[in-house]
C-alpha cells in the first residue's frame, strides 16, 4: 500500500484549532454547570442545616412533654430560598412525634447538632434532607431527639439548569468565534508557505535561477536545499554542454583530416577500384561528422529549450542571413534560393540560437534533398499573430511517410538514399517549434517536393 499523502496543512491546522475550541466550549459548559450546582447546593445546604439546627435548639422540655417554639424567622429563612416545599419530622427516642413520620431517615444517624445532609426520594419528588440530633431531658431522663428537615430542590435545579444553559450558550459562542479565528489563524500561518509555493510553481520546471522569494525561517532549509540542487543541476548541464562541444571538436578535427587526405588521394588515384573505396571513405567520414554535429545540435536545442530565453528576434533578418550563407552551397548544385520577406520587419520573442537552428535545418534539408538546377522558395509572412516561414522545395517529398514519423529521432525517410543525413534535422525543428510556442508542418507539394512550414509567435 502506498503511504498516505499527508492532508493539507491548512486543513490539519484548521481541524485541530476547531477541535480544540470545541473541547474548550464543552469544558466551559461542564465547569459552569457543575460549579453553579455546587455553589447553589452549598448555599441551600447551609440554610437548610442552619434551620434544622435552629429548630433542634429551640426544643424545650416542658411539663408533660416537649415544646417546640418555632420562631417565624426559622421558616422565613427557608421560604426565602424560593418556592420550595418543606417537610419536617421530629423523633424522640426513636418515635416520630410530629411532622411527616415517613420522611426518610439519614443513612448515617447524626450524633450532634452538626447536620448530616442526604438526598432521598420522597413521595413524588426528590428531597434534600438535613438531620441533627440532640439530647433532651424529658421527665428527668435524657431522651435522644432527631430533627429532620426536607426541602425540595426544584427551583434550585431550574436555576442551575438555566445557568448551565447560559454556559452552553457561552461555550457555543466561544466555539463560533473560534471557527473564524481559526480560519484566520490558519490562513495567516499558511500565507507565507502558499506564497512561496506559488512563487516556485510559477517559475515552471525550466527556470534554473535560484529561488529568491522570502521564506519563513522554518522553510529556509528547504529553500536552501532547493537552491543547492538547482545550482548543481545548472553546473551539470553546463558541464555537459562544454563536454559535448569538446567531444565534437575531438571527433571532428581528425575526421576533417581524414576527409581532406582522402580527397587528396582521390585526386591522385588513377584506378577505379581505389577511387570507389576512397569515395566510400569520404562518405562515411561525412556521415559520422554530420551525426556528431546533429547530435550536438540536438543536445544544445534540448538544453536551451529548457532555458526559455526571451530575446527579440527579427526572423526576416535571420532567414536572410541564412539564405545568404547557403548561397554558395546551393550554387554548387546550380540551385537557386528565392527569398520573399514581408514589407515590414517582424519580431518574435525567443531564443535566437534555437530559431536559427530550426531555420537552418529547414533550408539545409531543402538544399540537400533538392535536385540540381532546381529552386527553393523561402517565404516569410505574418499570419494571425505568427511569423510563418515556408520552405518549398522540388525535392523527393515525404516518400509516403507522416510528419510524426519523420520527426522521430534518428528516423530518416525511406527515400533518402544517397544523401548524407542523421535523422535529427526535423526533430530539432519540431522541438524548437514546441519550445517557442509555435508549430511545424510538413506537406507534399503539388508537382513534387515538400513544403515545410514553421510558425513562430509574434511578440506584442
Amino acid at each position, binding site marked *: 500500500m502506498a503511504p498516505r499523502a499527508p492532508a493539507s496543512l491548512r486543513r490539519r491546522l484548521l481541524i485541530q484549532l476547531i477541535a480544540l475550541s470545541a473541547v474548550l466550549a464543552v469544558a466551559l459548559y461542564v465547569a459552569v454547570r457543575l460549579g453553579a450546582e455546587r455553589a447553589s447546593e452549598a448555599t441551600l445546604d447551609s440554610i437548610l442545616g442552619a434551620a434544622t439546627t435552629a429548630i433542634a435548639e429551640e426544643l424545650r422540655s416542658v411539663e408533660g412533654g416537649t415544646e417546640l417554639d418555632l420562631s417565624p424567622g426559622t421558616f422565613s429563612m427557608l421560604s426565602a430560598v424560593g418556592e420550595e416545599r418543606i417537610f419536617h419530622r421530629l423523633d424522640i427516642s426513636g418515635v416520630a412525634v410530629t411532622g411527616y413520620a415517613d420522611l426518610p431517615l439519614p443513612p448515617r444517624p447524626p450524633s450532634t447538632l452538626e447536620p448530616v445532609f442526604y438526598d432521598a426520594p420522597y413521595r413524588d419528588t426528590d428531597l434534600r434532607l438535613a438531620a441533627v440530633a440532640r439530647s433532651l431531658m424529658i421527665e428527668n431522663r435524657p431522651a435522644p431527639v432527631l430533627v429532620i428537615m426536607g426541602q425540595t430542590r426544584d427551583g434550585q435545579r431550574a436555576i442551575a439548569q438555566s445557568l448551565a444553559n447560559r454556559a452552553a450558550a457561552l461555550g457555543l459562542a466561544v466555539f463560533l468565534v473560534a471557527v473564524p479565528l481559526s480560519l484566520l489563524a490558519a490562513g495567516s500561518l499558511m500565507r507565507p508557505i502558499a506564497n512561496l509555493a506559488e512563487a516556485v510553481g510559477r517559475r515552471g520546471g525550466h527556470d534554473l535561477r535560484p529561488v529568491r522569494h522570502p521564506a519563513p525561517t522554518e522553510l529556509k532549509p528547504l529553500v536552501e536545499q532547493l537552491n543547492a540542487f538547482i545550482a548543481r543541476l545548472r553546473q551539470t548541464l553546463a558541464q555537459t*554542454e562544454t563536454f*559535448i*562541444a569538446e567531444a*565534437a*571538436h*575531438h*571527433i*571532428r*578535427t*581528425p*575526421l*576533417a*583530416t*581524414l*576527409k*581532406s*587526405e582522402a*580527397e*587528396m588521394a*582521390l*585526386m591522385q588515384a588513377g584506378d*577505379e577500384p581505389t*577511387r570507389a573505396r576512397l*569515395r566510400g571513405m*569520404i*562518405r562515411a*567520414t*561525412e*556521415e559520422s*561528422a554530420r551525426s556528431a*554535429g546533429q547530435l*550536438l*545540435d540536438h543536445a*544544445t*536545442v534540448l538544453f*536551451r529549450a529548457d532555458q526559455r530565453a526571451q530575446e527579440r528576434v527579427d526572423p526576416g533578418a535571420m532567414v536572410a*542571413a541564412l539564405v545568404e*550563407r547557403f*548561397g*554558395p*552551397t546551393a*550554387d*554548387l*548544385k*546550380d540551385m537557386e534560393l528565392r527569398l520573399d520577406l514581408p514589407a515590414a520587419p517582424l519580431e518574435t520573442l525567443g531564443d*535566437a*540560437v*534555437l530559431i*536559427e*537552428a530550426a531555420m537552418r535545418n529547414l533550408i539545409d534539408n531543402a538544399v540537400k534533398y533538392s535536385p*540540381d538546377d532546381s529552386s527553393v522558395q523561402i517565404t516569410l509572412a505574418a499570419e494571425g499573430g505568427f511569423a510563418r516561414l515556408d520552405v518549398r522545395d522540388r525535392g523527393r517529398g515525404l516518400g509516403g511517410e507522416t510528419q510524426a514519423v519523420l520527426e522521430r529521432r534518428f528516423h530518416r525517410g525511406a527515400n533518402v*538514399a*544517397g*544523401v*548524407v543525413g542523421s535523422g535529427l534535422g526535423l526533430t530539432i525543428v519540431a522541438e524548437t517549434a514546441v519550445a517557442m510556442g509555435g508549430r511545424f508542418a510538413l506537406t507534399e507539394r503539388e508537382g513534387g517536393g515538400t513544403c515545410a512550414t514553421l510558425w513562430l509567435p509574434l511578440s506584442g
Partner: protein
Amino acid sequence: MRFLLIEDNADLARSIRTRLDLEGHAVDHAASLADAADHLAAAHYDLILLDITLPDGDGRQFLARHRAGHADTPVIVLTARSAVSDRVDTLDLGADDYLTKPFDFAELQARCRAVLRRRGGAASNLQSLGDLTFDPLGGCVTIAGEARDLRNRELRLLEALLSAPGRILSKDQLCDRLFSYSEPVSDNAIEVYVARLRKKIEGGSARIETVRGLGYRLTVG
C-alpha cells in the same frame, strides 16, 4: 591571393594548404595565435582561415581583437565545435563566414570566393586561353571580350579544364570537381554539363574535345 591559415592540426593544415596551393593561392600556415600575430605583422593577407580551438587561446578572441583593431581582412572560421550557439557568436564577432569541419573542399573554395567577391576583392588572377578569359573569383567568362553567363557547375568545369589546357581529364576527375562525394552522380552527368559548357563558349577559339574512352580536354584551334 594570399591566405593565412590558422590551424593547429598539422595534418589538416598540410592538406588544406596543398589544396589551396593547387588552386594557385599562396598559403601561410600559423599553428597558434602568437604565430598568427607574427604573420599578420609581417605581411598582408587577402583572407584568413581561422580555427576556433587553438593551443594558446580561443579563435573567437583573436577574431574580436582583429575586428577591434579595425583590420578588415575577411575571416572564415573553420570550427569543429559546431555548437549552435558558437555559430551565431562567430558571425556576431565579425567572421565573414564559417565552415564546420569536416568540410568539402569545393565548399571551402566556394565560400572563399563568395567572401572575397563580397569584400570587393580584385580580379587578380585572370586566366585566359585563346580569346577566352576567366575570372575565377568573380565567375566572369568572356569570349572575344563578350561576356557569357555561366552557371556555377559550368564555371567549375571550365576552371578544371583550364587548369590543364590540352591535357585529358577523365570523367571521374571532372566528377570529383563538380559533385560532392556524398551525392549520387549518374553516368551521363558529366556529359550533360560538358554539352552545356560547349554551348556557352560556342563561337570562341577554345573548345572542348571528347577523347573517346579517356575523357575531355580543352584546346585552342
